[in-house]
């Protein structure tokens, strides 16, 4: 066997190219390189508007006018605004009730969808419809459903003996809030349902078999096997759901525009009215930013809980 040695220079590469290649191969460099596009994207489309929003909230900034720094004056103005407190209460009630309903309903939906039945895949696909249909479109459909003259609900209620024309879903402050909660729940259920279904499918069947052999009832299998294993997913879905629900805009804007008498006015719609309707960009930004501490606290609490888990 003969060994052929090639001239060394034939393999030599320019020094610069070698060092760039090696540099790029470093995990610390490569990972940052991969992360750079999304980070830049986030900085441009989330970070910049967010910081600009904070800056606006500290200014008296009528639209089309230069702003003047006023410190926390806008927040103080909100503090003395009775509608602002109504909006705060509305937003918390709306988010809490809708999220709870979506959580319970979504779990029930996921458990049902996890069973074997004919046309299972078709039903699962149909289940996503409320989530897929653009909110504005589905809200217009709800507008008809909730109109006493055309409402299928009122038609049924009148058949059941409720005096004509039946409840005024959007004219009564309590019913109007209940209506927007119901629609938000209807729209958000598939998100909960499909995510929890994915979680359910990762539960090893052996655990259920072992529990059954130990004599666990259906409820006990759910309580001691399913629920603990689903808990991290429930928490993450809840986190997302709370953020989306808290900042909901389209549904209310199309259906009630915050009426009647601000009974359905939320942070997002009120901030929009002040910033765009009244042209007070600073004051509007301060209303929108009021959402931040509550959401931040929630996110931090849930993250800590998840890490401990």
């Amino acid at each position, binding site marked *: 066997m003969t060994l052929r040695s090639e001239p060394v220079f034939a393999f030599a590469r320019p020094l610069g190219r070698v060092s760039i290649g090696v540099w790029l191969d470093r995990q610390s460099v490569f990972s940052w390189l991969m992360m750079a596009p999304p980070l830049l994207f986030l900085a441009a489309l989330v970070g910049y508007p967010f910081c600009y929003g904070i800056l606006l909230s500290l200014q008296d900034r009528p639209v089309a006018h230069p702003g003047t720094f006023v410190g926390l004056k806008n927040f103080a103005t909100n503090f003395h605004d009775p509608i602002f407190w109504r909006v705060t209460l509305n937003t918390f009630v709306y988010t809490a009730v809708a999220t709870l309903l979506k959580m319970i309903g979504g779990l029930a939906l996921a458990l049902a969808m996890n069973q074997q039945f004919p046309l299972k895949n078709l039903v699962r696909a149909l289940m996503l419809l409320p989530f897929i249909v653009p909110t504005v479109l589905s809200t217009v459909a709800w507008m008809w459903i909730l109109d006493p003259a055309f409402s299928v609900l009122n038609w049924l209620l009148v058949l059941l003996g409720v005096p004509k024309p039946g409840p005024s879903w959007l004219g009564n402050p309590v019913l109007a809030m209940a209506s927007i909660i119901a629609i938000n729940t209807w729209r958000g259920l598939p998100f909960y349902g499909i995510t929890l279904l994915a979680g359910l499918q990762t539960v090893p069947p052996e655990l259920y078999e072992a529990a059954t052999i130990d004599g666990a009832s259906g409820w006990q299998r759910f309580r001691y096997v399913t629920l603990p294993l689903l808990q991290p997913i429930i928490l993450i879905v809840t986190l997302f759901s709370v953020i989306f629900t808290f900042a909901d805009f389209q549904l209310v804007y199309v259906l009630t525009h915050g009426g009647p008498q601000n009974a359905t006015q939320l942070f997002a719609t009120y901030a929009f009215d002040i910033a765009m309707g009244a042209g*007070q960009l600073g004051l509007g930004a301060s209303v929108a930013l009021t959402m931040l501490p509550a959401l931040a606290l929630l996110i931090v609490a849930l993250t800590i809980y998840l890490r401990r888990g």
Partner: protein
Amino acid sequence: MHGISRRGFLELASIGAASAVLAPGPAPAAGKRLTVLHESSFIPPFDEYIKTTLAEAYEKETGVKIVYEVTAVGSLPTRISTITETGTGADITMNGLLQVIQFSEKYLDVTDLCKEIGDKNGGWYDAGREAVVVDGKWKAVPFCNIGQLMNWRTDWFAEVGVKTFPETWEELYEVGKKLKAKDHPFGFELGHGFGDNHGWLYPLLWSYGGAEVAPDGKTVVINSDETARAVDFARKFFRDTMFEDVLGWTDVSNNKAWMSEQISCTNNAESILWFAKKNFPEIANVTDQAQNPTGPKGRFHLMGAISHSIFSFSPVKEEATAFMRWLMDPKQLGGWYAVADSYYQPTLHAYDNAPMWQVEPRNIPYRDAMTTAHLPGWPAPASRQMAESVAKYVVVDMFAKACAGASTKDVIKNAEAQLKEIYRSA
């Protein structure tokens, strides 16, 4: 291969430069584009007419291309905000209710142009001027008023013996009571729409002598006996002539209720009759329109002002001014108004007896209402604070809360507190 010689290049360059200087070029404006931003019209032929007929005629005449950009109803303030903040996007914009005062610093002063147009066309209505003059300068060219008046069912009113529309609010109330008993209630918006609520509630307040702010634009005067009387009237008017759902109505609701024959009287723009004539002729046959009723202090209407402004940062300001001058000439403007019947009521007296008013005599009250039409914060001049009060539905919700059961004293006190906070910066 031979390249061009230095001498040859110099010769060619000289010939080129000389041709550029001496050759007769196109008119200065030729080849330019003007973008006109408009809110989508409830009368579709209106948008179509400027997009095709007027834009094409202007391009043929001057070489300037008109790009007519339509934005959805309700989204105009957002679009103007974006344009003024970024300094790009359009050269001319339509303005709604109080947008001139909000964006006036970014609008060109068109005082001379408006004077010229006014002088040629019999002068401007006061209401037209009220909506566009900021600190003595015309910041927009008034275009029209979209009046909010009374629409009533002649057949059902006749059933209770009423052949002409009631003259006063109290008389209308009496008729409404009878009609509700016959299952033909009234339907006036008390929710958070953008026009049909303010359209009757501010005039009601004024007709009882109330107002949200004094003529100085600073002193809040909502807490008065006159306001209390207007609120008391609204409460009984709602209770005895309407139904609960109107408290949650937005602007589409009364149109829907009208076309489905749910209500016998409402307050709306002319579009309600226009739409009925096109789609529900039987309903149109029994629809009539009238000015708002009078109260103890007179008869009033809301000025649904529409105007056009030129952005001061537009690179084609001169062309935009020339286009506005051309557009406001009766040869163009008359045709544009006419395609929408009289949905857009002219703010120039030259059109008081224009043929457009002969098309549909039931629309004539909209013309006559111009002399008693005002902006929401009247008798104060338009202001940013006024825009904030409208955006926060202060006056609308004052009435709506009373209708929903709150006491007159409480609703006025709440409205006063809100208005004082708003007008503190005036």
